[in-house]
């Protein structure tokens, strides 16, 4: 099975494509692949506790690890204490680590 990193740079409030991308992740996971989602830029907006994002909640319930870019969170005034349950915070180096390994990485 393969490993997939989906970088989501957009938010679901502005783009319906976010739901599609997260669904790709869930399908890949159900097919037995390892999947990780990295929220970046406005993609971190639904990471705030209380933000409305059923698609992100589905991904978390589906057992996919979700990370949010530390800088993007800070840039948007989302403190570590405000990050939603289950979402981890990481530096952008996480992407480079996966690129340097055997992960298929998609920038969405």
């Amino acid at each position, binding site marked *: 099975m393969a490993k997939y990193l989906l970088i989501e740079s957009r938010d679901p409030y502005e783009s319906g494509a976010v739901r599609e991308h997260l669904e790709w992740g869930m399908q890949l996971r159900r097919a037995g692949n390892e999947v990780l989602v990295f929220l970046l830029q406005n993609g971190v907006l639904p990471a705030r506790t209380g933000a409305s994002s059923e698609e992100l909640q589905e991904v978390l319930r589906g057992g996919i690890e979700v990370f949010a870019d530390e800088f993007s969170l800070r840039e948007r005034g989302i403190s570590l204490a405000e990050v939603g349950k289950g979402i981890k915070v990481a530096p952008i180096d996480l992407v480079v680590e996966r690129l340097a390994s055997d992960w*298929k990485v*998609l920038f969405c």
Partner: protein
Amino acid sequence: MKTLQIVESAYRATLEEQDDTILWMTHAMRGAGAELGVLLCGNAVSYAVRGQEASGIQFGEWQQTQPPNIANDVAALAAKGVEIYVVEEDLERRGIPSTRLIEAVKPVARRNLAGLFDQYARLWHW
């Protein structure tokens, strides 16, 4: 290494460029020997529609003589051996029946995308 070009955004600068720049690049790379597939998703499923017609752009004396012909470009890629997939649900959402599509494309259901992705060593999402 087989690479899947995932094309999602559509008609972004196709009049200025007289091409979709990702399909154009795909042609160029194919010419250099690349092993490629193309997945049209989101609004880019419209690229598979027969009858797109973009002629008539004119500004003052300047007239466009080579308007983009995206469906032809898709068909030409297929003729060069590039597999072209188009997401069924994205077609349905946009009210595009299969009868309006060029023959060169292969509809794929969303539930089968994981399997499609697995067939390619690399996925490039444009």
